[in-house]
């Protein structure tokens, strides 16, 4: 394989996001842009990839993502990039992408940055931004090795089309059988919410004292035409709200026009997930709660007093 930028994601839309950014880097650094596609694909699927501008598609039809564990997935990435010369490997920072990033980097003796939230070029350097110190800071980092592995948070870049006529290269890879055997896969029962693309998000935290009280918050959500989100405690610890609504460093990152944070103290592990909101409103009875420091508007008050009145007021506006 020739040196270049190689994009790999276990979902097509993930690959399209990365290809969109990859095009820019490819021009800047004069490196060829390729997409690595695993498993059998038909012509139409292949054409879809070329809509997003890779000069080359590396197809490995005999290896599907379902055949791979972290170890064997890393060996695929290694085989594709092992030849001498610079490579920038861009993978999606999904859980699968993130685990393989570290292992592939170790195989390649490459520097690796995971969970990137931004990529910029500065002269000959590629500067990678990621949250550090539990979300308190953003660390801007450069990888000094010629092979670089970067995992990028989903939806960091928006996919934009730029069709090209690229070439397809097929590879046959011999991959040893995975040592971590898959016994069963259970799809999570999800309400298929997409909180990451919601225009309005109402986030709730431990200030809510009973599960039954969520009805009151759902009503506010409906009045605001928004989606309900929550802190880790309410989903992982209490199991009141499904995990696909969990917002924060280990959950979803949302970018709404309006975020309303209710009964949330404002710990950084949660707030990194709402930082990109255009407007943040906080409702909390503790005046000293850190959430007020990142709020545009806030009410110091008991959510049980404030929320019903707020809902009523917003409903009244509509009529």
């Amino acid at each position, binding site marked *: 394989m020739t040196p270049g930028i190689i994009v790999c994601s276990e979902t097509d839309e993930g690959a399209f996001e990365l290809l969109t950014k990859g095009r820019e880097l490819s021009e800047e650094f004069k490196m060829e842009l390729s997409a690595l596609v695993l498993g059998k694909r038909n012509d139409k699927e292949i054409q879809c990839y070329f809509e997003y501008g890779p000069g080359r598609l590396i197809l490995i039809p005999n290896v599907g993502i379902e055949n791979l564990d972290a*170890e064997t997935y890393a060996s695929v990435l290694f085989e594709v990039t092992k030849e001498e010369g610079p490579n920038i490997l861009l993978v999606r920072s999904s859980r699968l992408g993130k685990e393989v990033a570290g292992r592939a980097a170790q195989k390649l003796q490459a520097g690796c940055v995971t969970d990137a939230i931004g990529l910029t070029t500065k002269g000959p350097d590629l500067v990678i931004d990621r949250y*550090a110190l539990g979300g308190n800071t953003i660390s801007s980092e450069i990888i000094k*090795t010629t092979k670089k592995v970067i995992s990028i948070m989903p939806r960091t870049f928006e996919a934009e089309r730029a069709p090209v006529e690229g070439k397809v290269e097929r590879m046959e890879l011999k991959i040893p059988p995975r040592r971590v*055997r*898959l016994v069963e896969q259970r799809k999570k029962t999800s309400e298929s919410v997409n909180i990451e693309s919601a225009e309005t998000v109402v986030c709730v935290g431990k200030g809510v004292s009973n599960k039954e009280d969520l009805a009151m918050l759902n009503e506010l959500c409906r009045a605001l035409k928004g989606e309900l989100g929550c802190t880790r405690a309410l989903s992982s610890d209490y199991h009141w709200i499904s995990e696909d609504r969990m917002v924060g460093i280990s959950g979803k990152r949302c970018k709404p026009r309006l975020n309303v944070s209710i009964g949330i103290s404002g710990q*950084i592990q949660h707030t990194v997930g709402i930082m990109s909101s255009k407007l943040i409103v906080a409702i909390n009875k503790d005046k000293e709660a850190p959430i007020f420091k990142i709020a545009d508007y806030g009410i110091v008050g008991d959510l049980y007093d404030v929320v019903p009145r707020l809902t009523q007021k917003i409903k009244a506006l509509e009529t």
Partner: protein
Amino acid sequence: MLHVIACMKQVVDLQQIRIKRDTREPVLEGLPVLFGDMDKNALEEAVRIKEKHGAKVSVLSVGSAKLKDTVLEALAMGADEACIVVDPACEGSDTAASAMTLVKAIEKIRPYDLILVGEGSADNYSGQIGSRIAEMLNAPQITYVRELSIEDNTVTAVRDIEAALEVVKADMPLVASVTSEINKPRRAPLAQILRASRKPLNVWTLKDLGIEASQVGSAASPIQVVSNVAPQQERKGVIFEGDVDATVAELVDALGKEGALL
């Protein structure tokens, strides 16, 4: 007997970080240090395995001299021994160098059956350590484990990969990373923490592990940190207090003017 190694990272108390107003740099000096929450999940799981199957549990950590105190909590939670690598040259090591240091220490206390790490460290959450260790040890890895059981020499785990849960099996020795859902770490009472100092504590330097100072630390790191500052926040900070009806009216009025109400 099974040998389970829990790798833990000592971090500053992230809740207490202050940000300098002018430079937006974090102030880290003088902050208390502790183990990350998910590292405690890893240790807790190791101790539960010991309680169920009988095992020797070793805690392994690389960090500053304060580790000698920090690690007492891990011993009090049920680890049988602690192995810590304390060497000023490690300061500024990136994940590759830290993983290498851990592996050298693991080679000193092997054979092992299971190495447990948290899904990510509390401070940087890079999630690379488990993957890099597994690769260096040529071991299988199971990441994002929220349920783990052992039968004979086989680990069965339920792992969480966002849209799905996977049930997987692999033979030990292996490396597993755990998520916070796997258990609720026990709290060690103070008396137990004090007594923990009687348990074996191995303190190693890089030399003890056969590592040159030039192989670790920021100079050896392939990652160069250009800057590390708090994100710029330009929020309005208009806070209403007092009578509930009045504050709600003020808020709705403000949101209306912002065009935030669809």
